[in-house]
């Protein structure tokens, strides 16, 4: 199979087939098996240019570390206060300029569709590192890779996605990615933060989805619990937030009602959605998940930069 990622934008995970996903997962396995000296040939002399219009340390660091492991370098803007962006430069102009200095552009922007627009303007491929509440495709790739590594498969699993389903961009990318597999998806959210129907129109025909307002009723059948952060700012009044907040906290008593090998995932950063008492259990997958992130991103970058990296 020819490399489906070579010189290609990663704007939406919907642009990729199951074969494409499996291609990047096996490339990730390959990256993990390479010696550091072999890896550092894959991005030698190449530059990743990033622009983060929203604060992010994790995703940016993960991309920078991935690029460094391939022997490449990263340049970019993340401190928007000191940049021309703050002075009102358009996204279009910023993209055109960074396009001149880099081989791959990584963009995070607060508006939906921003990466698609950037990809139309730039000559070099664009990676969407978060576009409003629309998508965060590399997060979903690493989430799927994590499930595959932890469970040995994705098909046949029961997966609950819990928390802020309305604004959580990782939720949408994960759902779109899961449409390539035969899985049971349970969406668990308070009424105010339920999934946006207008963003999952095509998902329904491909995925079995059930919606719930509490986790308890489905706990015993779950293989994966994917928890997202519920942000205080989303609630019109604080009392509503306080009511909802505890409802979805995963702690050891939650685990006691679930399958012994249930995997608890989280895109991080977490607040109090997952109690620290869970951290030391074998069910806690979220730190390993973040670790897979760097290797998966290194694989993605290597595939985008080299037609035949291995």
């Amino acid at each position, binding site marked *: 199979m020819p490399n489906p990622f070579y010189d290609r934008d990663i704007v*939406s995970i*919907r642009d990729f087939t199951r074969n494409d996903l499996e291609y990047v997962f096996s490339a990730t396995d390959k990256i993990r098996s390479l010696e550091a000296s072999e890896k550092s040939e894959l991005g030698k002399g190449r530059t990743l240019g990033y622009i983060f219009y929203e604060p992010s340390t994790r995703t940016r660091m993960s991309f920078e570390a991935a690029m460094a492991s391939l022997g490449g370098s990263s340049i970019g803007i993340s401190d928007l206060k000191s940049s021309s962006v703050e002075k009102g430069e*358009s*996204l*279009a102009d910023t993209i055109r300029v960074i396009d001149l200095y880099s081989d791959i552009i990584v963009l995070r*922007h*607060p*508006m*939906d*569709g*921003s990466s*698609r*627009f950037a990809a139309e303007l730039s000559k070099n491929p664009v990676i969407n590192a978060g*576009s*409003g*509440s*629309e998508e965060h495709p590399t997060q979903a790739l690493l989430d799927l890779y994590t499930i595959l590594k932890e469970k040995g498969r994705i098909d046949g699993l029961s997966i609950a996605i819990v928390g802020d389903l309305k604004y959580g961009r990782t939720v949408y990318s994960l759902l779109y990615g899961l449409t390539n597999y035969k899985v049971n998806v349970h969406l668990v959210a308070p009424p105010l933060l339920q999934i*946006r129907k*207008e*963003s999952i*129109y*095509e998902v329904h025909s491909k995925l079995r989805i059930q919606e719930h307002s509490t986790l308890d009723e489905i706990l015993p059948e779950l293989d994966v619990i994917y928890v997202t952060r519920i942000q205080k700012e989303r609630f019109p009044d604080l009392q509503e937030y306080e009511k909802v907040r505890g409802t979805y906290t995963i702690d050891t008593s939650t685990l006691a009602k679930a399958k012994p090998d249930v995997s608890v995932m989280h895109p991080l950063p977490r607040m109090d959605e997952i109690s620290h008492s869970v951290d030391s259990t074998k069910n806690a997958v979220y730190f390993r998940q973040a670790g897979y992130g760097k290797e998966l991103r290194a694989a993605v970058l290597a595939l985008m930069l080299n037609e035949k990296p291995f």
Partner: protein
Amino acid sequence: MSDTSQLLVRRIRDGTVIDHIEPGKALVVLRALNITGREGNVITVALNVPSSKHGKKDIIKVENRFLETDETNKLALIAPHATINIIKDYRLVEKRKILLPDSIVGIFKCPNLKCISNSGEEIRSSIDIIDKEKLVLKCRYCTRTLSTDELIF
């Protein structure tokens, strides 16, 4: 046109008759085509005219203006079943159906305020029609689906 509608709306000598508009949509059609009446030509609008085919319909007659295909195709999302009749010297010289395109660029605004197409960047809105039967639309940029009622001019 049925006899009833002939009675309601006078025949025109030259111009365009937009027939079979979904009832209640005529005023939106006028707005989409930027027909204001400021040019001084006679414009007749009939709402809720009994129709043999669809129960009720709206009709617009614009005298002394011949609407082009790319103008009337803008109506695809507002009045997809409308027919366009071009009249010259009281005679019907052309009858067109509206063609539903695969996408409509630069006419409607996406209703999602957080969509990059509403950001003031140099960008033209692009709305894809993903289900022509049920008239399901999708913004090319934010990828949210929407119905024709949600479109903004």
